[in-house]
């Protein structure tokens, strides 16, 4: 089976996908509700789409193709409000966060869609452990070669994006010590990790032919890479983000990636090289484990510094691009977040420290997702 041709898309446009947790309003455990939610959502018109996901306590929403931050935020607000309204009618809570803090995966049911059944029978318990929730950001590319160069350029910033978006410190009732424990589940899949270092679509097709020849993959969907090309849309898809706890943060992260993409495409700030991937898994681990305080090894100089320091330098370089893309409020949001708490994982640990109850954490997450005040949990 050969790969479909790379579609045309407008460069630097973006689309956002968010996977959400559906929880009950009693003890805030995951609760099957996607079918009911989708039924009630039929009465609502939203930009983009709302679709079922692998288990029926998960739901995915996506935006249409957007050109700037403001548009993403606007579309996410409309869809979020419609979803929250529907969830309220069903006594359901919706929450961001890369993992549910204490759900027991063995209790999750699989939404009956053939592809999900297939995944579930192939991966067994891994597919259940895959009850994790991510944000995917698509960036439009002017052609397949541009897409691959952009993909490898963005790879340098994967750790930064992980550290900023991390919102999954708790898994099955335990503090994992990680900022993003979700990615540990993703890494368990055989075809996760990074895309092979090829810079032209012709070379990529050769690689894809070889892989299909081995019978290991059938389509692009079988690759769980951190960033992967999506020929169907003519985009590359950044897949490492945990679902943030608010749509404001989700929009800001999307805009940050858009700015990075413009910088890399226009200024070509560094040459691409296979060796840049040498510290890749180390950096990624540091980001998952320690968030912004993790160590970042500069792939070019071998210098060690914290992700926070490297991100500050990067944000400075992005400023003109933020102006061009009207993304200044987004970068301001990121700076503010870095000053205040770093990421949602740190916020979550603060809540649990104070409340000593993971259920209360999920309740507060639901309120933050709905854009309501968290309220006093007396």
């Amino acid at each position: 089976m050969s790969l479909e041709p790379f579609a045309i898309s407008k460069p630097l446009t973006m689309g956002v996908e968010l996977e959400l947790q559906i929880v009950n309003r009693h003890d805030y455990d995951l609760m099957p509700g996607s079918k009911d939610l989708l039924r009630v959502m039929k009465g609502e018109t939203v930009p983009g789409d709302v679709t079922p996901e692998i288990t029926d306590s998960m739901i995915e929403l996506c935006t249409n193709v957007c050109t700037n931050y403001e548009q993403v935020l606007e579309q996410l607000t409309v869809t979020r409000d419609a979803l929250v309204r529907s969830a309220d009618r069903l006594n359901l809570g919706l929450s961001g966060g890369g993992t549910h803090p204490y759900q027991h995966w063995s209790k999750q049911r699989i939404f009956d869609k053939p592809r999900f059944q297939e995944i579930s029978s192939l991966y067994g318990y891994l597919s259940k452990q895959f009850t994790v929730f991510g944000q995917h950001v698509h960036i439009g590319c002017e052609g397949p070669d541009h897409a691959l160069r952009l993909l490898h350029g963005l790879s340098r910033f994967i750790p930064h994006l992980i550290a900023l978006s991390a919102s999954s410190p708790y898994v099955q009732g335990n503090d994992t010590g990680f900022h993003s424990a979700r990615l540990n589940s993703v890494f368990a899949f055989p075809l996760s990790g990074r895309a092979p270092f090829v810079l032209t679509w012709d070379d990529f097709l050769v690689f894809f032919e070889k892989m299909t020849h081995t019978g290991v993959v059938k389509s692009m969907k079988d690759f769980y890479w951190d960033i992967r090309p999506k020929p169907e849309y003519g985009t590359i898809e950044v897949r490492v983000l945990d679902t943030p706890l608010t749509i404001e943060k989700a929009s800001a992260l999307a805009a940050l990636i858009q700015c990075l993409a413009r910088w890399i495409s226009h200024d070509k700030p560094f040459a691409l090289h296979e060796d840049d991937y040498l510290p890749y898994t180390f950096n990624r681990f540091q980001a998952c484990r320690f968030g912004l305080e993790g160590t970042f090894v500069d792939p070019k100089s071998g210098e060690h510094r914290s992700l926070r320091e490297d991100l500050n330098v990067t944000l400075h370089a992005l400023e003109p691009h933020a102006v061009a893309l009207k993304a200044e409020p987004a970068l301001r949001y990121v700076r503010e977040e870095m000053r205040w708490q770093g990421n949602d994982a740190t916020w979550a640990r603060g809540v649990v420290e104070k409340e000593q109850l993971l259920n209360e954490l999920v309740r507060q997450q639901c309120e933050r997702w709905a854009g309501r005040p968290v309220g006093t949990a007396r």
Partner: protein
Amino acid sequence: MMNDFANFLQFSSWPPRPDWLFWASLTMVAAGVLGEFVNRRLGLPRVVGYSVVGMVLAALGHGIFANGALDARLRLVVDLALALLLFEMGSRVNLRWLRNNKALLGASAAEAVASFGIVGVGLMLLGVAPLIAFSCAVLTMASSAAVVGRVGAELRAAGQVSERMLALTSLNTIYGVLAHKLLLGWLALDQKGDWLEAVAQPLYAFIGSIIVAALLARLTANLMRRLDLRNENSVLMLLGLVLVALSVARVLNLSTLLVPLLAGMILRNTTERPWVWPRHFGTAGGVLVLMLFVAVGSAWTLDALAMGAVLALALLLLRLVAKALALTGMARLSGIDARQGIALAVCLSPVSGTMLVLFSEVQLHHPQVAATLAPVILSTIALMELVGPIAVQWGLRLAGEHHPETTVKEAAKK
């Protein structure tokens, strides 16, 4: 010779005569064993086994209505266990949900009114005297909190039907108790011409129950803020609190059904923090719940069944039809589909402990009326005792909400 030996060992009597404790314990063991058996072999909820033990006891002449009236000690067990289940159920009713989904409140009202109207009129058309027909309609307004709460928890059901059956049962229990108080008032007026009793009694019971419930909720919230309720000792204290409130309700002649139910609801709706405690308050509460099912299962007599079974069957069918019509009618508006509406109606069909308590109060105040009611009411309980839990299981299965574990096993087989 044996007597001397028994004396030597200081036996209190010879031949040894097992006391009530022995029989009660034996009943518990038998119920436990049978519950496990029906669960493993027949795939039915465990409570079915408990009820069977109760039915056998009744058949042997040891039922709680064996002497014609509810046995006081057993009434206590029923009250205590029901209090736990009602408190638990009330604590899951989110009033904000009813505000956000007015159609659900509408569905609840429609379901209760339809049940009352269709049962009352239906029984009259079948030739039952109006007073008796509408008394039956009042007594069957409330669904069984015991069966609904217990079976839902046992199957670890989760979904819209499970959520709604708890909310609607809580609500129709409130309507049922209020209607019952009005019925008692009406009977007092009808028979004694006593206006004061007719009006003041229900009013006192209702307001008093709210006050005691609010106090209990307040105390519980305070306790829970300081203690972790997943800890066994704290749960025992919570259990104790609920039981204290219940005894106060009994002493003050308040509704033993409303106090725990409202306390749970007030607790849920005055604080945002999610409350988590082991279901039925752990093992101690679990024992009470088991005894409840045995006791209610034994609430039938052969005479009653012979006289009232046909009418009881008609009543249950009328009630189910009423609920199904109301709930499927309101399904779309309230955000579920017709299939879930039917499933919900089936899940709300059980009657048991709540009705028994309400009936025993009629019996206390108006023995003649109660005597006419007894055959139908006791037969209804007897019929529903086995069918009820199975109906809830079936309804949850119809809605695809039962037992996630089974689903996983079934999936593995495919």
